[in-house]
């Protein structure tokens, strides 16, 4: 029987008796899904489109054996209150089988304000840990062997300063910069687009980033110098194809900036990493990761002429989608997280964060964090999906979606190129506008019940204070201010004044700022003081609304 006969003889009569649930079935990116995908929708050029794992174009994964060798790194994003309390949570997570750390900083730290800055009011230690000084970083990483445990830090505008803190703490622990392993997010473009923790205007911000690329290629070679992030773009409401497109367009801008600064692509490119969202539409998500890998490989090889295969590989971290979690019937979130995490694993992620079930209410409790970690461990050790490489390859539907996501993302990248690149497109508000439009249409679809969220617009129940929530001690703001005051009294303030002058001069030069950041921190200059010195020279970014 051929497909046409099957449709006429079997599908048509069935449709007459049982119409389908919808007239059309579409993914988040507006890609139509067929009733049945068959070999005729498959681009049959296996070697060109898929290849082998660890080989160009890396559709099937960046490594030949993938999870048969080693599972992905289980890396739970955590941090709150003071360095001491966060250090305790990290040690708990490591004792429970977590394999890498991921540090969440509070907003004052992320925007370069000390805890006692008037702008920090009410925010100290809230969404992450407060780290305004080298002392705080030393406490945060106390007892954690920096040559063995890799440290990922969600820090952007002041990323280089926080990396300098880790380098300085490593020295105290007797660990050479060359042995340090970890990641800084260091992705300012998506801050302008979607996340909001920018400080400086684009030009000096891009210079800080290329300084890190250059410095780390020589001094900290095992560090991921940037984590080019689609996660927040997706959380802000983009579709899957937009997430890939805008992330890779930002990646193109960073690579171009570094090459323009005179760096060799095959020297810095292998230290680039990515960060994606694992959202609800399961098949599209699996396809999305595969499409992103293939598209980036082509960009690095063809557009930038990178020669080293390591420069072509898109290595990425994944986090499940916080914005899909519901405050209503929060236990259901455990199931959402499990499905999303499976999509990330089937898409070949290098590391994974699974969200706490209580994320729509507060930061995760210890119990919620443990269930989230257990979810990954169950997928790894019980489900068997890591036992063969890229198991969805060859699925007619998944290969079709992979091709479609790639094609849609390429269209967006072409548009952005025509506008003069990611930075111009952001300054024109194009990227933000596309994301906002998608977010608004989704919200409208929810209101019309074209999209269903279980427990929110269907299958609702009356409920009251369903689960315990994490509560933070409000006194820590005052305690952090007192600690800062003591440090400012104890240090050599003449030296600090001298260093501030040196930093301002260096900011106006082309010198790499990294060595000076380390020196400033070792003399107890605070994060806020360093960032304010640079603000005075470079000014602040002001978005157009």
């Amino acid at each position: 029987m051929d497909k046409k006969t099957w449709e006429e003889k079997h599908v048509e009569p069935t449709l007459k008796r049982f119409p389908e649930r919808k007239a059309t079935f579409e993914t988040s990116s507006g890609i139509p899904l067929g009733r049945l995908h068959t070999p005729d929708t498959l681009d049959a050029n296996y070697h060109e489109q898929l290849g082998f794992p660890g080989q160009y174009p890396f559709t099937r994964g960046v490594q030949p054996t993938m999870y048969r060798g080693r599972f992905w790194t289980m890396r739970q994003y955590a941090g709150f209150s003071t360095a001491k309390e966060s250090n305790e949570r990290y040690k708990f997570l490591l004792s429970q089988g977590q394999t890498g750390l991921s540090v969440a900083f509070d907003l004052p730290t992320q925007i370069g304000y000390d805890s006692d800055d008037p702008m920090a009011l009410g925010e100290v230690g809230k969404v992450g840990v407060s780290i305004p000084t080298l002392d705080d970083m030393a406490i945060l990483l106390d007892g954690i062997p920096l040559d063995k445990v890799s440290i990922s830090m969600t820090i952007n505008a002041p990323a280089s300063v926080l990396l300098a803190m880790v380098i300085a703490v490593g020295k105290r622990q007797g660990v050479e910069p060359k042995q340090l392993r970890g990641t800084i997010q260091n992705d300012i473009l998506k801050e302008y687009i979607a996340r909001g923790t920018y400080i400086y205007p684009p030009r000096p911000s891009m210079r800080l980033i290329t300084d890190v690329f250059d410095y780390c290629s020589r001094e900290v070679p095992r560090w991921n110098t940037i984590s080019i992030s689609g996660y927040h773009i997706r959380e802000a409401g983009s579709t899957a194809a937009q997430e890939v497109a805008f992330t890779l367009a930002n990646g193109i801008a960073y690579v171009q900036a570094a090459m323009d600064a005179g760096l060799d692509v095959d020297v810095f490119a292998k230290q680039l990493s990515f960060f994606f969202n694992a959202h609800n539409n399961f098949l599209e998500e699996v396809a999305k990761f595969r499409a992103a890998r293939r598209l980036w490989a082509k960009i690095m090889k063809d557009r930038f002429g990178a020669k080293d295969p390591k420069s072509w590989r898109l290595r990425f971290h994944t986090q499940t989608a916080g914005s899909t979690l519901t405050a209503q019937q929060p236990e259901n979130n455990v199931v959402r997280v499990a499905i999303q995490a499976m999509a990330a694993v089937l898409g070949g992620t290098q590391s994974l964060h699974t969200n706490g079930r209580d994320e729509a209410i507060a930061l995760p409790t210890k119990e919620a964090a443990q269930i989230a970690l257990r979810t990954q461990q169950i997928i790894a050790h019980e489900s068997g999906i890591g036992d063969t490489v890229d198991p969805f390859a060859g699925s007619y539907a998944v290969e079709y979606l992979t091709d479609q996501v790639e094609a849609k993302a390429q269209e967006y990248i072409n548009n952005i190129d025509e506008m003069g690149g990611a930075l111009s497109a952001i300054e024109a508000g194009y990227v933000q506008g596309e994301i906002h439009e998608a977010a608004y249409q989704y919200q409208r679809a929810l209101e019309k019940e074209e999209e269903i969220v279980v427990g929110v617009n269907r299958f609702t129940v009356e409920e009251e204070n369903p689960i315990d929530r994490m509560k933070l001690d409000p006194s820590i703001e005052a305690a952090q201010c007192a600690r800062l005051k003591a440090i400012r009294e104890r240090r050599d303030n003449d030296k600090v004044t001298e260093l501030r002058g040196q930093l301002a001069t260096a900011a106006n030069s082309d010198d790499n700022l990294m060595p000076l950041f380390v020196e400033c921190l070792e003399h107890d200059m605070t994060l806020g003081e360093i960032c304010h010195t640079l603000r005075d020279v470079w000014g602040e970014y002001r978005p157009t609304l």
Partner: protein
Amino acid sequence: MQKTPRILIAKPGLDGHDRGAKVIARALRDAGMEVIYTGLRQTPEMIVNAALQEDVDSIGLSILSGAHPVILPRIMDLLKENDMEDVPVFLGGIIPDDDIPAMLDIGVAAVFGPGTSLEKITDFIWQTVAEAEA
């Protein structure tokens, strides 16, 4: 016929999560209101000043960082100092259930948690603005 309400939508504190604020701003515009959106990183002083300058009928605040117990009392005090306590303030974002009574006590008119429909928020504003006018 009711006059067109002018609404200030603001993001107090350092929180960068503005998806909700922007979606609400657009929904209120689509419902026929005039909306002024402040953008990120607004101090209580900046917000109250904007409300005064723009002569708004209602203020919507969105906070997801947990800073509301410190920031909201400041805003409500400043509104009082400026004789604006009759301007209804509504709050959205991540506001835990057990924090809501304290917010209502200091004069917040309503707290809209995750999952609230746009229709509910829009209806609420039409109603409170009409009541404030009457």
